[in-house]
């Protein structure tokens, strides 16, 4: 029999028990709930901003922040960068752990969920309604919600503002001037009829081996890149009460049919929407695609690649020319210790002077319409087309789970493009799924 031993010297046993108790107490400490941001120290108020800008934007943003701090000595702003593709997850976790910042830069698609759960400060209590009239309408509207949206059983359509857009973007038509000239085309297409005609002319099998080397057009699959089709046909996605998807309309069918026909019927679209295909951007640089839809973020890239390109408005459809809206919004969380200062900073960010600076430094579309005439576009004249295009842009549908809506639509559009379903069937199925999984959730 193995003799039993005391494995711990006698005095250490109680010590170990005490240590365990202390560790448990320590572990349970710090579970209190706190307001975000630091309390004012020596009269200085501290704000924390979570932003998701790229390197270039980050540098410009830091410049704006330091200028703001200089002009407002009572405020100090701590800027923290978080990755764009993880920001929603990070904010969700921060809310659960009560560690959200005062201000965060968020995807407008996430705004409805934040508003519905009453997580944000209502900026209408300040003078946001006066500020917002000067901002790009489609970008601003992503932050405006009727009371009925977030107050249960309310039927009030009184509009409330929960964020300000800090950046806006959208796509326009990029075309390769050299390929156009080679095909005897002098200008970009202005209507969808012209667009189809041009795309067919620009699709070429130059060596006659039966394989097309150059395509007239290349399209992305995603709903966001398909909005220009839907918006130019005046498609309404969701009913006014937000309960029904309206995508099985004639206008929606015609819009999606146009995109499908470009690939399947006219053979003028490269199939760039397929997984692993040459992306529209890359194909445009490689001179394989004559026309693509993309945004101002590619202006510098294409110029650096020496592409002789032009930018034009999205071709007109029955509802005129229109585009999608991207970008982001800045919102103040309800736990902020200094909401007044946070709002004041947001106001400064979207002001005419700041937006002029932002647009010129980064070649981006300013969110403030008053800054439009002040922006010097001599270095990038194409930016002017984008500024024009944004005036007719249409915001994305405001639903609680936009990602799910996009995921359903992408899947159904894929089946239509790949010929597995007709456009009508794909849209009918999309409506059924969106109604069930996105709109009628409790």
């Amino acid at each position, binding site marked *: 029999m193995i003799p*039993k*031993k*005391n*494995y*711990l010297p*006698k*005095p250490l*046993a*109680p*010590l*170990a*028990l*005490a240590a*365990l108790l202390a*560790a*448990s107490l320590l*572990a349970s400490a710090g579970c209190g709930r706190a307001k975000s941001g630091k309390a004012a120290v020596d009269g200085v108020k501290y704000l924390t901003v979570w932003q998701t800008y790229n390197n270039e934007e980050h540098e410009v943003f830091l410049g704006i922040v330091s200028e703001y701090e200089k002009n407002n000595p009572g405020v100090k702003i701590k800027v923290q960068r978080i990755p764009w593709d993880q920001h929603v*997850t990070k904010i*969700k976790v921060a*809310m*659960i752990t*009560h560690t959200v910042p005062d201000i965060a830069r968020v995807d407008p698609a996430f705004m409805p*969920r*934040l508003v*519905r*759960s*009453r*997580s944000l400060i209502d900026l209408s209590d300040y003078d946001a309604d006066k500020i917002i009239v000067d901002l790009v309408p489609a970008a601003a509207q992503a932050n405006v919600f009727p009371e009925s949206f977030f107050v*249960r059983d309310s039927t009030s359509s009184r509009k409330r503002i929960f964020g300000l857009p800090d950046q806006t973007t959208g796509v326009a038509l990029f075309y390769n001037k050299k390929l156009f000239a080679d095909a005897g085309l002098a200008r970009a297409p202005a209507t969808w009829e012209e667009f189809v005609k041009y795309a067919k002319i620009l699709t070429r099998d130059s060596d006659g081996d039966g394989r097309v080397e150059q395509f007239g057009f290349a399209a992305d699959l995603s709903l966001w890149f398909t909005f220009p089709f839907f918006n130019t046909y005046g498609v309404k996605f969701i009913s006014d009460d937000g309960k029904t998807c309206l995508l099985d309309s004639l206008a929606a069918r015609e819009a999606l049919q146009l995109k499908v026909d470009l690939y399947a019927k006219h053979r003028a679209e490269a199939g760039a929407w*397929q*997984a*692993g*295909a*040459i992306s529209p951007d890359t194909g445009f640089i490689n001179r394989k695609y004559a026309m693509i839809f993309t945004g101002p973020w590619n202006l510098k890239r294409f110029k650096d690649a020496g592409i002789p390109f032009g930018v034009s408005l999205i071709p007109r459809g029955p509802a005129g020319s229109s585009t999608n809206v991207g970008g982001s919004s800045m919102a103040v969380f*309800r*736990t902020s210790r200094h909401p007044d200062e946070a709002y004041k900073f947001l106001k400064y960010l979207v002001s005419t002077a700041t937006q002029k600076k932002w647009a010129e430094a980064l070649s981006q579309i300013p969110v403030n319409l008053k800054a439009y005439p002040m922006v010097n576009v001599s270095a990038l004249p194409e930016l002017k087309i984008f500024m024009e295009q944004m005036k007719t842009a249409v915001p994305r549908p405001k639903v*609680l*789970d936009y*990602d*799910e809506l996009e995921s359903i639509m992408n*899947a*159904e559009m*894929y*089946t239509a493009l*790949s010929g*597995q*379903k007709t456009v009508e069937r*794909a849209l009918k*199925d999309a409506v059924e*799924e969106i109604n069930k999984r996105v709109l009628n*959730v*409790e």
Partner: protein
Amino acid sequence: MMEKLVSKMSPKWRDTTVALVFLSPFLAVYAVFLVYPIFYSMYLSFRTVSVDTDMFNIFSDMRFTGLKNYIELAKDYHFWWSLTVTFYYAILYIPLLIFSSLVLAVLLNNHLKGHSFFRSAYFMPNVLDMFVVGTIWMFLYAPQGGVISQIMNALGIDFFSREGILGSPRTAMLGVVVALVLKNSGFGMILFLAAIQNISRSVYEAADIDGASNWQKFTKITIPLVRPIILFMVVTGMIGALNSFTEIYAMTSGKPNVVVFGKTMEATRVAGYYLFRQWDRMNYGYAAAMSYALLFITLAVSYVNAKILKSSH
């Protein structure tokens, strides 16, 4: 006081207490990160995040909905589809894994020159993270510029550069499985090699005297004697398939889409990935119910496998 208490204890109690104190760091971690989540996820599975749930207090603000999540799950054809895809994945993965592991083990058992190098080389991918391996394979499979499509193009086969392996519903799952098999067969190889080397040489010598061919020796001696390893790999492979997530997340995100009985589905969306999607959409209660459903399915499958294993002994 504490010292007094300890000195009053009988030696048996003192030993138990001391053992518990030493075990307590592990037990604390185990309780917090394993036991508590198991029970908490069961609690969550009876609750639902509503559109009005306060996101600052999301878990405490979830509504009690009884068995609603489980009933919804039973009616959710996307869930049943993801289970079908999971079993399809297992059917492709397990035999291929066993075959490749066994072949590698038999080859290395022949004491080829540099066999220890090959043994390490084949085992190496097993220690890599699945996400890294998946990303590398995505580059290999890329229809434009991927090594595989370039080689196939040179051989006059253009399928790989047209649709791509991961872009076609017919080949996407096979593409994922091949990547996973090549990653994991090193581990299976070590198990088989150990089992093969434990087979007494006298058995083979007796077979030689009886005039058995190499193939006969392999099928009549080697395979029957490594059967426990095969069954072990079936059990762990099945559990692995039911838990699979990273490879799908890294390589396909459940895509490409395919129409099945008129419904649009995702060709590689296994149950683990569908669960992740639900969690990501803040359907915490539904995801918890799904995790319990998967747990019971895993237990049932493991029980059946264990029965087979027992009967084979």
